[in-house]
Protein backbone atom coordinates (compact mmCIF):
# COMPACT_ATOMS: atom_id res chain seq x y z
CA UNK A 1 0.00 0.00 0.00
CA UNK A 2 1.38 3.38 -0.91
CA UNK A 3 1.56 6.24 1.56
CA UNK A 4 -1.37 7.92 -0.20
CA UNK A 5 -3.62 4.96 0.47
CA UNK A 6 -2.49 4.69 4.08
CA UNK A 7 -3.14 8.40 4.59
CA UNK A 8 -6.62 7.95 3.05
CA UNK A 9 -7.23 5.21 5.61
CA UNK A 10 -6.08 7.52 8.40
CA UNK A 11 -8.38 10.27 7.13
CA UNK A 12 -11.32 7.90 6.97
CA UNK A 13 -10.72 6.43 10.43
CA UNK A 14 -10.35 9.91 11.89
CA UNK A 15 -13.63 10.97 10.26
CA UNK A 16 -15.39 7.99 11.83
CA UNK A 17 -13.70 8.58 15.19
CA UNK A 18 -14.50 12.29 15.35
CA UNK A 19 -18.03 11.66 14.12
CA UNK A 20 -18.56 9.38 17.12
CA UNK A 21 -16.83 11.76 19.51
CA UNK A 22 -18.03 15.11 18.25
CA UNK A 23 -17.26 16.62 21.64
CA UNK A 24 -13.54 16.70 20.87
CA UNK A 25 -14.19 19.81 18.83
CA UNK A 26 -15.67 21.61 21.80
CA UNK A 27 -12.46 22.86 23.47
CA UNK A 28 -11.16 24.24 20.17
CA UNK A 29 -14.47 25.96 19.37
CA UNK A 30 -15.00 27.41 22.83
CA UNK A 31 -11.34 28.34 23.04
CA UNK A 32 -11.55 30.16 19.72
CA UNK A 33 -14.63 32.03 20.89
CA UNK A 34 -12.98 32.99 24.17
CA UNK A 35 -9.77 34.04 22.52
CA UNK A 36 -11.67 36.29 20.10
CA UNK A 37 -13.44 37.99 23.00
CA UNK A 38 -10.25 38.30 25.06
CA UNK A 39 -8.31 39.72 22.15
CA UNK A 40 -11.02 42.26 21.35
CA UNK A 41 -11.04 43.40 24.98
CA UNK A 42 -7.26 43.59 25.06
CA UNK A 43 -7.21 45.51 21.80
CA UNK A 44 -9.63 48.06 23.26
CA UNK A 45 -7.52 48.39 26.40
CA UNK A 46 -4.42 48.77 24.28
CA UNK A 47 -6.00 51.50 22.19
CA UNK A 48 -7.10 53.34 25.33
CA UNK A 49 -3.66 53.07 26.91
CA UNK A 50 -1.91 54.10 23.71
CA UNK A 51 -4.05 57.15 23.12
CA UNK A 52 -3.98 58.31 26.71
CA UNK A 53 -0.25 57.78 27.08
CA UNK A 54 0.45 59.70 23.88
CA UNK A 55 -1.69 62.53 25.17
CA UNK A 56 0.00 62.46 28.56
CA UNK A 57 3.48 62.34 27.13
CA UNK A 58 2.78 65.25 24.83
CA UNK A 59 1.26 67.20 27.69
CA UNK A 60 4.09 66.39 30.09
CA UNK A 61 6.83 66.42 27.43
CA UNK A 62 7.84 63.03 28.75
CA UNK A 63 8.60 60.19 26.27
CA UNK A 64 8.00 57.52 28.90
CA UNK A 65 4.36 57.46 27.88
CA UNK A 66 5.19 56.07 24.47
CA UNK A 67 7.36 53.43 26.12
CA UNK A 68 4.44 52.50 28.36
CA UNK A 69 2.14 51.92 25.41
CA UNK A 70 4.89 49.95 23.69
CA UNK A 71 5.17 47.65 26.69
CA UNK A 72 1.42 47.21 26.72
CA UNK A 73 1.50 46.21 23.05
CA UNK A 74 4.17 43.62 23.82
CA UNK A 75 2.08 42.28 26.68
CA UNK A 76 -0.86 42.03 24.27
CA UNK A 77 1.17 39.91 21.88
CA UNK A 78 2.44 37.77 24.76
CA UNK A 79 -1.08 37.13 26.05
CA UNK A 80 -2.27 36.20 22.54
CA UNK A 81 0.60 33.71 22.19
CA UNK A 82 0.00 32.22 25.64
CA UNK A 83 -3.71 31.75 24.94
CA UNK A 84 -2.95 29.92 21.70
CA UNK A 85 -0.33 27.71 23.39
CA UNK A 86 -2.88 26.92 26.11
CA UNK A 87 -5.46 25.84 23.53
CA UNK A 88 -2.96 23.88 21.45
CA UNK A 89 -1.46 21.92 24.34
CA UNK A 90 -4.84 21.03 25.78
CA UNK A 91 -6.31 20.04 22.43
CA UNK A 92 -3.34 17.84 21.54
CA UNK A 93 -3.49 16.09 24.91
CA UNK A 94 -7.21 15.57 24.36
CA UNK A 95 -6.60 14.27 20.83
CA UNK A 96 -3.96 11.85 22.09
CA UNK A 97 -6.29 10.59 24.78
CA UNK A 98 -9.25 10.05 22.47
CA UNK A 99 -7.00 8.38 19.90
CA UNK A 100 -5.84 5.98 22.61
CA UNK A 101 -9.43 5.02 23.11
CA UNK A 102 -10.18 6.88 26.31
CA UNK A 103 -13.57 8.54 26.46
CA UNK A 104 -13.77 12.29 26.05
CA UNK A 105 -13.34 14.23 29.28
CA UNK A 106 -11.98 17.62 30.18
CA UNK A 107 -9.56 15.83 32.50
CA UNK A 108 -7.49 14.85 29.48
CA UNK A 109 -7.37 18.50 28.48
CA UNK A 110 -6.38 19.79 31.94
CA UNK A 111 -3.82 17.02 32.58
CA UNK A 112 -2.15 17.88 29.31
CA UNK A 113 -1.91 21.51 30.28
CA UNK A 114 -0.56 20.74 33.73
CA UNK A 115 2.13 18.52 32.28
CA UNK A 116 3.16 20.44 29.21
CA UNK A 117 2.16 24.09 29.34
CA UNK A 118 5.36 25.38 30.90
CA UNK A 119 7.58 23.29 28.65
CA UNK A 120 5.67 24.36 25.55
CA UNK A 121 5.73 28.05 26.43
CA UNK A 122 9.46 28.10 27.12
CA UNK A 123 10.14 26.22 23.88
CA UNK A 124 7.94 28.60 21.96
CA UNK A 125 9.79 31.63 23.27
CA UNK A 126 13.22 30.07 22.69
CA UNK A 127 12.33 28.77 19.26
CA UNK A 128 10.75 32.06 18.38
CA UNK A 129 14.00 33.86 19.03
CA UNK A 130 15.90 31.32 16.92
CA UNK A 131 13.35 31.65 14.11
CA UNK A 132 13.61 35.45 14.24
CA UNK A 133 17.34 35.34 13.56
CA UNK A 134 16.97 32.58 10.97
CA UNK A 135 14.39 34.70 9.19
CA UNK A 136 16.78 37.65 9.05
CA UNK A 137 19.17 35.45 7.10
CA UNK A 138 16.62 33.65 4.98
CA UNK A 139 14.30 36.53 4.15
CA UNK A 140 16.00 37.44 0.86
CA UNK A 141 15.97 33.98 -0.78
CA UNK A 142 12.42 33.46 0.43
CA UNK A 143 11.20 36.69 -1.15
CA UNK A 144 13.08 35.87 -4.38
CA UNK A 145 11.45 32.45 -4.45
CA UNK A 146 8.04 33.90 -3.77
CA UNK A 147 8.34 36.38 -6.61
CA UNK A 148 9.77 34.07 -9.27
CA UNK A 149 8.12 30.75 -8.52
CA UNK A 150 5.04 32.32 -7.01
CA UNK A 151 4.16 34.35 -10.07
CA UNK A 152 5.11 31.63 -12.57
CA UNK A 153 3.08 28.96 -10.82
CA UNK A 154 0.18 31.22 -9.96
CA UNK A 155 0.48 30.76 -6.20
CA UNK A 156 0.97 27.00 -6.02
CA UNK A 157 4.68 27.51 -5.41
CA UNK A 158 3.96 29.54 -2.29
CA UNK A 159 1.56 26.87 -1.04
CA UNK A 160 4.26 24.27 -1.64
CA UNK A 161 6.78 26.33 0.30
CA UNK A 162 4.49 26.75 3.30
CA UNK A 163 3.63 23.04 3.29
CA UNK A 164 7.36 22.27 3.10
CA UNK A 165 8.12 24.36 6.18
CA UNK A 166 5.11 22.94 8.01
CA UNK A 167 6.23 19.40 7.33
CA UNK A 168 9.62 20.22 8.89
CA UNK A 169 8.54 22.35 11.86
CA UNK A 170 4.77 22.17 12.04
CA UNK A 171 4.08 19.48 14.60
CA UNK A 172 6.84 19.53 17.21
CA UNK A 173 4.21 20.16 19.88
CA UNK A 174 2.36 17.00 18.87
CA UNK A 175 5.60 15.02 19.01
CA UNK A 176 6.45 16.55 22.38
CA UNK A 177 3.15 15.52 23.95
CA UNK A 178 3.08 12.13 22.24
CA UNK A 179 6.55 11.07 23.37
CA UNK A 180 6.98 13.32 26.41
CA UNK A 181 10.21 14.81 25.09
CA UNK A 182 11.94 18.04 25.93
CA UNK A 183 11.21 21.15 23.90
CA UNK A 184 14.24 21.29 21.63
CA UNK A 185 14.39 17.49 21.47
CA UNK A 186 10.95 17.44 19.94
CA UNK A 187 11.95 20.14 17.43
CA UNK A 188 14.97 18.04 16.41
CA UNK A 189 12.75 14.98 16.10
CA UNK A 190 10.31 17.01 14.00
CA UNK A 191 13.12 18.08 11.65
CA UNK A 192 14.56 14.58 11.24
CA UNK A 193 11.16 12.95 10.81
CA UNK A 194 10.11 15.65 8.38
CA UNK A 195 13.21 15.31 6.19
CA UNK A 196 12.81 11.56 6.08
CA UNK A 197 9.12 11.61 5.20
CA UNK A 198 8.69 14.81 3.23
CA UNK A 199 6.11 13.69 0.68
CA UNK A 200 3.40 12.28 2.97
CA UNK A 201 3.69 15.19 5.40
CA UNK A 202 3.61 17.82 2.65
CA UNK A 203 0.49 16.11 1.29
CA UNK A 204 -1.19 16.18 4.72
CA UNK A 205 -0.40 19.85 5.25
CA UNK A 206 -1.58 20.64 1.74
CA UNK A 207 -4.90 18.97 2.54
CA UNK A 208 -5.15 20.86 5.82
CA UNK A 209 -4.43 24.22 4.20
CA UNK A 210 -6.87 23.73 1.33
CA UNK A 211 -9.67 22.35 3.48
CA UNK A 212 -9.30 24.96 6.21
CA UNK A 213 -9.41 27.75 3.64
CA UNK A 214 -11.87 26.47 1.06
CA UNK A 215 -14.40 24.22 2.78
CA UNK A 216 -16.47 27.09 4.08
CA UNK A 217 -16.22 29.26 0.96
CA UNK A 218 -18.68 26.86 -0.64
CA UNK A 219 -21.35 28.71 1.29
CA UNK A 220 -20.69 32.19 0.08
CA UNK A 221 -18.71 35.18 1.26
CA UNK A 222 -21.01 36.17 4.12
CA UNK A 223 -21.02 32.74 5.77
CA UNK A 224 -17.27 32.51 5.17
CA UNK A 225 -16.70 35.79 6.95
CA UNK A 226 -18.67 34.69 10.01
CA UNK A 227 -17.72 31.04 10.30
CA UNK A 228 -14.25 30.67 8.85
CA UNK A 229 -12.49 30.92 12.23
CA UNK A 230 -14.60 28.11 13.66
CA UNK A 231 -14.27 25.93 10.58
CA UNK A 232 -10.50 26.46 10.74
CA UNK A 233 -10.51 25.35 14.39
CA UNK A 234 -12.48 22.21 13.52
CA UNK A 235 -10.27 21.35 10.54
CA UNK A 236 -7.11 21.92 12.57
CA UNK A 237 -8.33 19.67 15.39
CA UNK A 238 -9.26 16.99 12.83
CA UNK A 239 -5.77 17.17 11.35
CA UNK A 240 -4.14 16.92 14.76
CA UNK A 241 -5.71 13.47 14.88
CA UNK A 242 -4.48 12.69 11.38
CA UNK A 243 -0.92 13.88 12.00
CA UNK A 244 -0.68 11.97 15.27
CA UNK A 245 -2.01 8.82 13.63
CA UNK A 246 0.34 9.14 10.67
CA UNK A 247 3.30 9.86 12.95
CA UNK A 248 2.61 6.77 15.05
CA UNK A 249 2.08 4.57 12.02
CA UNK A 250 5.23 5.70 10.21
CA UNK A 251 7.30 5.54 13.40
CA UNK A 252 6.28 1.92 13.91
CA UNK A 253 7.07 0.99 10.33
CA UNK A 254 10.39 2.85 10.60
CA UNK A 255 11.50 0.76 13.54
CA UNK A 256 10.62 -2.51 11.80
Amino acid at each position, binding site marked *: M*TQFELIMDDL*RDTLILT*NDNKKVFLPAMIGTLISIVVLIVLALILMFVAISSVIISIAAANPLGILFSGITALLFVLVAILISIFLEVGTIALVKGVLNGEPFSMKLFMNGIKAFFLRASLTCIGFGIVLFFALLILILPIILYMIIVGILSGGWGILLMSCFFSSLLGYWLIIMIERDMSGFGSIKENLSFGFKHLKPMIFIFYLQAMLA*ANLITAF*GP*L*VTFICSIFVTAIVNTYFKFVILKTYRRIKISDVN
Partner: protein
Amino acid sequence: MKGQNFNKIIKLFDYFKQAYRINILHKELYKPQVMLILLKGLFTFLTIASFVQLSKNMIHLTGLDFSKFFKVFMGEFLGLPFIIILGALIITLFGSTYVESGLYSMYHTFVADTRNDKDFITLANKYFPRFLFGNILIILFWILAIIPYFILGAVSLSIGFSLIPIIVSAFLMVWKVAIVSKNIATIDAIKESVGFCKRHFIPSITLMILSRGLTTLNSGSSSGASWQNSYSNIGQLGDQPSLETMPSNGFNGNFFDSNVDVSRIVEIALYASATIFAIMTILYGLIHMIFDIFFGLVFTCVYVDNWGQRDDIPIDDPVEIIGGEINDTI
Protein backbone atom coordinates in the same frame (compact mmCIF):
# COMPACT_ATOMS: atom_id res chain seq x y z
CA MET B 1 -24.78 12.86 10.13
CA LYS B 2 -27.50 10.51 8.94
CA GLY B 3 -26.26 6.95 8.68
CA GLN B 4 -26.65 6.22 4.98
CA ASN B 5 -25.18 9.52 3.79
CA PHE B 6 -22.28 9.19 6.17
CA ASN B 7 -21.49 5.68 4.94
CA LYS B 8 -21.50 6.90 1.36
CA ILE B 9 -19.12 9.71 2.29
CA ILE B 10 -16.85 7.17 3.96
CA LYS B 11 -16.78 5.30 0.65
CA LEU B 12 -15.21 8.43 -0.87
CA PHE B 13 -11.85 7.51 0.62
CA ASP B 14 -11.98 4.15 -1.13
CA TYR B 15 -12.73 5.89 -4.42
CA PHE B 16 -9.78 8.25 -3.87
CA LYS B 17 -7.54 5.25 -3.28
CA GLN B 18 -8.85 3.52 -6.39
CA ALA B 19 -8.35 6.63 -8.53
CA TYR B 20 -4.80 7.02 -7.20
CA ARG B 21 -3.92 3.40 -7.97
CA ILE B 22 -5.20 3.73 -11.54
CA ASN B 23 -3.28 6.99 -11.88
CA ILE B 24 -0.03 5.32 -10.86
CA LEU B 25 -0.54 2.26 -13.03
CA HIS B 26 -1.53 4.05 -16.20
CA LYS B 27 0.74 6.98 -16.87
CA GLU B 28 -0.45 7.09 -20.50
CA LEU B 29 -3.44 9.03 -19.20
CA TYR B 30 -1.27 12.12 -19.24
CA LYS B 31 0.05 12.07 -22.77
CA PRO B 32 -2.90 13.69 -24.62
CA GLN B 33 -3.33 16.42 -22.04
CA VAL B 34 0.35 17.37 -21.95
CA MET B 35 0.35 17.90 -25.71
CA LEU B 36 -2.75 20.06 -25.45
CA ILE B 37 -1.18 22.16 -22.71
CA LEU B 38 2.04 22.73 -24.60
CA LEU B 39 -0.02 23.83 -27.59
CA LYS B 40 -1.94 26.27 -25.40
CA GLY B 41 1.28 27.72 -24.06
CA LEU B 42 2.62 28.20 -27.56
CA PHE B 43 -0.62 29.89 -28.61
CA THR B 44 -0.50 32.27 -25.66
CA PHE B 45 3.03 33.30 -26.50
CA LEU B 46 2.19 33.78 -30.17
CA THR B 47 -0.88 35.85 -29.38
CA ILE B 48 0.85 38.21 -27.01
CA ALA B 49 3.87 38.45 -29.31
CA SER B 50 1.61 39.34 -32.21
CA PHE B 51 -0.16 41.96 -30.12
CA VAL B 52 3.22 43.40 -29.22
CA GLN B 53 4.14 43.62 -32.91
CA LEU B 54 0.76 45.14 -33.68
CA SER B 55 1.17 47.78 -30.96
CA LYS B 56 4.71 48.55 -32.00
CA ASN B 57 3.59 49.26 -35.53
CA MET B 58 0.67 51.26 -34.18
CA ILE B 59 3.01 53.45 -32.20
CA HIS B 60 5.14 54.07 -35.27
CA LEU B 61 2.03 55.18 -37.14
CA THR B 62 0.26 57.28 -34.61
CA GLY B 63 2.96 58.45 -32.25
CA LEU B 64 2.05 58.34 -28.60
CA ASP B 65 -1.33 59.97 -29.10
CA PHE B 66 -3.43 57.47 -27.20
CA SER B 67 -6.91 58.13 -28.57
CA LYS B 68 -5.71 57.94 -32.17
CA PHE B 69 -3.73 54.81 -31.27
CA PHE B 70 -6.82 53.18 -29.82
CA LYS B 71 -9.02 54.00 -32.81
CA VAL B 72 -6.58 52.61 -35.35
CA PHE B 73 -5.92 49.62 -33.09
CA MET B 74 -9.61 48.76 -32.83
CA GLY B 75 -9.99 49.29 -36.56
CA GLU B 76 -7.24 46.84 -37.30
CA PHE B 77 -8.30 44.51 -34.51
CA LEU B 78 -11.91 44.07 -35.53
CA GLY B 79 -10.80 42.79 -38.86
CA LEU B 80 -8.58 39.78 -39.27
CA PRO B 81 -7.17 39.37 -35.73
CA PHE B 82 -10.59 39.20 -34.10
CA ILE B 83 -11.71 36.46 -36.43
CA ILE B 84 -8.48 34.61 -35.82
CA ILE B 85 -8.80 34.87 -32.03
CA LEU B 86 -12.43 33.73 -32.17
CA GLY B 87 -11.31 30.85 -34.35
CA ALA B 88 -8.58 30.00 -31.83
CA LEU B 89 -11.12 29.95 -29.00
CA ILE B 90 -13.29 27.57 -30.99
CA ILE B 91 -10.29 25.39 -31.85
CA THR B 92 -9.34 25.26 -28.16
CA LEU B 93 -12.89 24.29 -27.23
CA PHE B 94 -12.88 21.52 -29.83
CA GLY B 95 -9.40 20.35 -28.85
CA SER B 96 -10.15 20.22 -25.13
CA THR B 97 -13.42 18.41 -25.71
CA TYR B 98 -11.76 15.89 -28.02
CA VAL B 99 -9.07 15.13 -25.46
CA GLU B 100 -11.74 14.96 -22.76
CA SER B 101 -13.86 12.45 -24.66
CA GLY B 102 -10.85 10.21 -25.18
CA LEU B 103 -9.81 10.56 -21.55
CA TYR B 104 -13.22 9.71 -20.12
CA SER B 105 -13.40 6.58 -22.22
CA MET B 106 -9.94 5.66 -20.90
CA TYR B 107 -11.13 6.25 -17.32
CA HIS B 108 -14.05 3.92 -17.87
CA THR B 109 -11.81 1.26 -19.39
CA PHE B 110 -9.50 1.31 -16.40
CA VAL B 111 -12.15 1.55 -13.68
CA ALA B 112 -14.63 -0.97 -15.03
CA ASP B 113 -11.66 -3.05 -16.18
CA THR B 114 -13.15 -3.71 -19.60
CA ARG B 115 -10.66 -5.04 -22.09
CA ASN B 116 -10.71 -2.55 -24.92
CA ASP B 117 -8.76 -3.12 -28.07
CA LYS B 118 -9.70 0.20 -29.55
CA ASP B 119 -7.13 2.89 -29.01
CA PHE B 120 -7.46 6.47 -27.90
CA ILE B 121 -8.23 7.91 -31.34
CA THR B 122 -11.07 5.50 -32.11
CA LEU B 123 -12.68 5.98 -28.73
CA ALA B 124 -12.31 9.74 -28.86
CA ASN B 125 -13.88 9.86 -32.30
CA LYS B 126 -16.78 7.76 -31.11
CA TYR B 127 -17.76 9.97 -28.22
CA PHE B 128 -16.59 13.36 -29.43
CA PRO B 129 -19.87 14.64 -30.98
CA ARG B 130 -21.86 13.88 -27.85
CA PHE B 131 -19.27 15.50 -25.58
CA LEU B 132 -19.14 18.58 -27.81
CA PHE B 133 -22.92 18.89 -27.87
CA GLY B 134 -23.05 18.57 -24.10
CA ASN B 135 -20.30 21.12 -23.47
CA ILE B 136 -21.92 23.65 -25.81
CA LEU B 137 -25.29 23.09 -24.11
CA ILE B 138 -23.76 23.75 -20.70
CA ILE B 139 -21.96 26.89 -21.89
CA LEU B 140 -25.23 28.19 -23.35
CA PHE B 141 -27.03 27.30 -20.14
CA TRP B 142 -24.59 29.33 -18.05
CA ILE B 143 -24.77 32.29 -20.43
CA LEU B 144 -28.56 32.29 -20.11
CA ALA B 145 -28.46 31.67 -16.39
CA ILE B 146 -26.12 34.48 -15.40
CA ILE B 147 -28.85 36.96 -14.49
CA PRO B 148 -31.04 34.56 -12.46
CA TYR B 149 -27.82 33.33 -10.81
CA PHE B 150 -26.90 36.80 -9.64
CA ILE B 151 -30.43 37.51 -8.42
CA LEU B 152 -30.65 34.22 -6.52
CA GLY B 153 -27.18 34.73 -5.13
CA ALA B 154 -27.96 38.17 -3.76
CA VAL B 155 -31.31 37.06 -2.34
CA SER B 156 -29.79 34.11 -0.50
CA LEU B 157 -27.47 36.37 1.47
CA SER B 158 -24.64 35.59 -0.92
CA ILE B 159 -24.71 31.91 0.01
CA GLY B 160 -26.04 31.21 -3.46
CA PHE B 161 -23.06 32.80 -5.17
CA SER B 162 -20.93 29.81 -4.34
CA LEU B 163 -23.54 27.18 -3.63
CA ILE B 164 -25.51 27.46 -6.87
CA PRO B 165 -22.57 26.65 -9.18
CA ILE B 166 -21.66 23.79 -6.84
CA ILE B 167 -25.18 22.35 -6.90
CA VAL B 168 -25.43 22.70 -10.69
CA SER B 169 -22.01 21.08 -11.09
CA ALA B 170 -23.06 18.26 -8.78
CA PHE B 171 -26.14 17.57 -10.92
CA LEU B 172 -23.88 17.54 -13.98
CA MET B 173 -21.17 15.54 -12.24
CA VAL B 174 -21.44 12.23 -14.10
CA TRP B 175 -22.97 13.00 -17.50
CA LYS B 176 -19.66 12.41 -19.24
CA VAL B 177 -19.16 9.13 -17.40
CA ALA B 178 -22.69 8.10 -18.30
CA ILE B 179 -22.09 8.70 -22.02
CA VAL B 180 -18.98 6.55 -21.96
CA SER B 181 -20.31 3.84 -19.70
CA LYS B 182 -23.78 3.33 -21.12
CA ASN B 183 -23.23 4.64 -24.67
CA ILE B 184 -26.33 6.85 -24.55
CA ALA B 185 -27.15 10.20 -26.12
CA THR B 186 -26.22 13.52 -24.54
CA ILE B 187 -29.68 14.49 -23.27
CA ASP B 188 -30.20 11.04 -21.76
CA ALA B 189 -26.79 11.25 -20.12
CA ILE B 190 -27.64 14.59 -18.56
CA LYS B 191 -30.94 13.20 -17.31
CA GLU B 192 -29.08 10.19 -15.92
CA SER B 193 -26.62 12.50 -14.17
CA VAL B 194 -29.43 14.54 -12.62
CA GLY B 195 -31.14 11.37 -11.43
CA PHE B 196 -27.89 10.01 -10.03
CA CYS B 197 -27.31 13.17 -8.04
CA LYS B 198 -30.89 13.19 -6.76
CA ARG B 199 -30.48 9.63 -5.48
CA HIS B 200 -27.25 10.47 -3.68
CA PHE B 201 -27.63 14.16 -3.02
CA ILE B 202 -25.54 14.83 0.08
CA PRO B 203 -22.54 12.70 -0.91
CA SER B 204 -22.47 14.23 -4.41
CA ILE B 205 -22.55 17.76 -3.01
CA THR B 206 -19.80 16.81 -0.56
CA LEU B 207 -17.65 15.43 -3.36
CA MET B 208 -18.22 18.57 -5.44
CA ILE B 209 -17.28 20.86 -2.53
CA LEU B 210 -14.18 18.76 -1.86
CA SER B 211 -13.08 18.73 -5.51
CA ARG B 212 -13.53 22.48 -5.77
CA GLY B 213 -11.91 23.13 -2.39
CA LEU B 214 -8.83 21.06 -3.08
CA THR B 215 -8.11 22.44 -6.52
CA THR B 216 -8.75 26.19 -6.48
CA LEU B 217 -6.30 28.57 -4.86
CA ASN B 218 -8.37 31.72 -4.79
CA SER B 219 -10.65 31.67 -1.78
CA GLY B 220 -13.25 32.10 -4.47
CA SER B 221 -16.74 32.79 -3.35
CA SER B 222 -17.97 33.12 -6.88
CA SER B 223 -15.94 30.51 -8.68
CA GLY B 224 -17.18 27.04 -9.36
CA ALA B 225 -19.03 26.82 -12.63
CA SER B 226 -17.71 23.64 -14.15
CA TRP B 227 -17.35 25.08 -17.62
CA GLN B 228 -15.22 27.88 -16.24
CA ASN B 229 -12.82 25.37 -14.78
CA SER B 230 -12.53 23.49 -18.03
CA TYR B 231 -11.89 26.42 -20.26
CA SER B 232 -10.43 29.07 -18.02
CA ASN B 233 -7.03 29.04 -19.67
CA ILE B 234 -7.98 29.37 -23.29
CA GLY B 235 -4.88 29.90 -25.37
CA GLN B 236 -5.11 32.41 -28.10
CA LEU B 237 -3.79 32.06 -31.58
CA GLY B 238 -2.71 35.31 -33.10
CA ASP B 239 -1.47 36.09 -36.51
CA GLN B 240 0.57 39.17 -37.02
CA PRO B 241 -1.00 41.50 -39.61
CA SER B 242 1.72 42.91 -41.76
CA LEU B 243 1.83 46.65 -41.21
CA GLU B 244 5.41 47.25 -42.13
CA THR B 245 4.12 48.23 -45.58
CA MET B 246 2.23 51.21 -44.16
CA PRO B 247 4.04 54.50 -44.48
CA SER B 248 5.14 56.33 -41.38
CA ASN B 249 5.35 60.08 -41.49
CA GLY B 250 8.50 61.99 -40.79
CA PHE B 251 7.60 63.40 -37.39
CA ASN B 252 7.27 59.99 -35.82
CA GLY B 253 10.51 58.91 -37.42
CA ASN B 254 12.35 61.78 -35.74
CA PHE B 255 10.65 61.14 -32.45
CA PHE B 256 11.71 57.55 -32.35
CA ASP B 257 15.18 58.10 -33.68
CA SER B 258 16.09 59.82 -30.49
CA ASN B 259 14.15 57.44 -28.28
CA VAL B 260 14.95 54.20 -30.04
CA ASP B 261 16.50 52.71 -26.89
CA VAL B 262 13.32 53.19 -24.88
CA SER B 263 11.11 51.53 -27.44
CA ARG B 264 13.53 48.61 -27.71
CA ILE B 265 13.46 48.14 -23.95
CA VAL B 266 9.66 48.28 -23.88
CA GLU B 267 9.54 45.76 -26.71
CA ILE B 268 11.92 43.39 -24.91
CA ALA B 269 9.91 43.78 -21.71
CA LEU B 270 6.69 42.94 -23.54
CA TYR B 271 8.24 39.86 -25.14
CA ALA B 272 9.53 38.79 -21.72
CA SER B 273 6.06 39.15 -20.24
CA ALA B 274 4.68 37.17 -23.18
CA THR B 275 7.10 34.37 -22.28
CA ILE B 276 6.10 34.60 -18.63
CA PHE B 277 2.42 34.36 -19.55
CA ALA B 278 3.13 31.35 -21.73
CA ILE B 279 5.01 29.63 -18.89
CA MET B 280 2.18 30.48 -16.48
CA THR B 281 -0.36 28.98 -18.87
CA ILE B 282 1.67 25.81 -19.21
CA LEU B 283 2.29 25.41 -15.46
CA TYR B 284 -1.34 26.18 -14.60
CA GLY B 285 -2.45 23.70 -17.23
CA LEU B 286 -0.12 20.98 -15.92
CA ILE B 287 -1.24 21.40 -12.31
CA HIS B 288 -4.91 21.36 -13.26
CA MET B 289 -4.37 18.42 -15.58
CA ILE B 290 -3.33 16.33 -12.57
CA PHE B 291 -6.44 17.40 -10.65
CA ASP B 292 -8.75 16.93 -13.65
CA ILE B 293 -7.52 13.42 -14.32
CA PHE B 294 -7.68 12.45 -10.64
CA PHE B 295 -11.21 13.73 -10.13
CA GLY B 296 -12.35 12.41 -13.52
CA LEU B 297 -11.26 8.99 -12.28
CA VAL B 298 -13.03 9.56 -8.94
CA PHE B 299 -16.30 10.47 -10.68
CA THR B 300 -15.98 7.36 -12.86
CA CYS B 301 -15.37 5.18 -9.79
CA VAL B 302 -18.33 6.75 -8.00
CA TYR B 303 -20.66 6.17 -10.95
CA VAL B 304 -19.56 2.63 -11.71
CA ASP B 305 -19.85 1.69 -8.05
CA ASN B 306 -23.08 3.68 -7.55
CA TRP B 307 -21.78 4.87 -4.14
CA GLY B 308 -21.77 1.29 -2.93
CA GLN B 309 -25.51 0.88 -3.27
CA ARG B 310 -26.70 -2.25 -4.98
CA ASP B 311 -30.44 -1.92 -5.01
CA ASP B 312 -31.65 1.62 -5.48
CA ILE B 313 -31.34 1.93 -9.25
CA PRO B 314 -34.82 2.74 -10.55
CA ILE B 315 -36.36 -0.11 -12.43
CA ASP B 316 -38.06 0.75 -15.69
CA ASP B 317 -39.96 -2.52 -15.97
CA PRO B 318 -43.61 -2.28 -15.01
CA VAL B 319 -44.56 -4.13 -11.88
CA GLU B 320 -46.36 -7.38 -12.60
CA ILE B 321 -49.72 -7.56 -10.94
CA ILE B 322 -50.37 -11.15 -9.91
CA GLY B 323 -53.97 -12.16 -9.40
CA GLY B 324 -55.14 -8.57 -9.51
CA GLU B 325 -53.72 -7.83 -6.07
CA ILE B 326 -50.84 -5.56 -5.18
CA ASN B 327 -49.20 -5.93 -1.82
CA ASP B 328 -48.19 -2.64 -0.36
CA THR B 329 -45.11 -2.99 1.77
CA ILE B 330 -44.55 -0.21 4.23
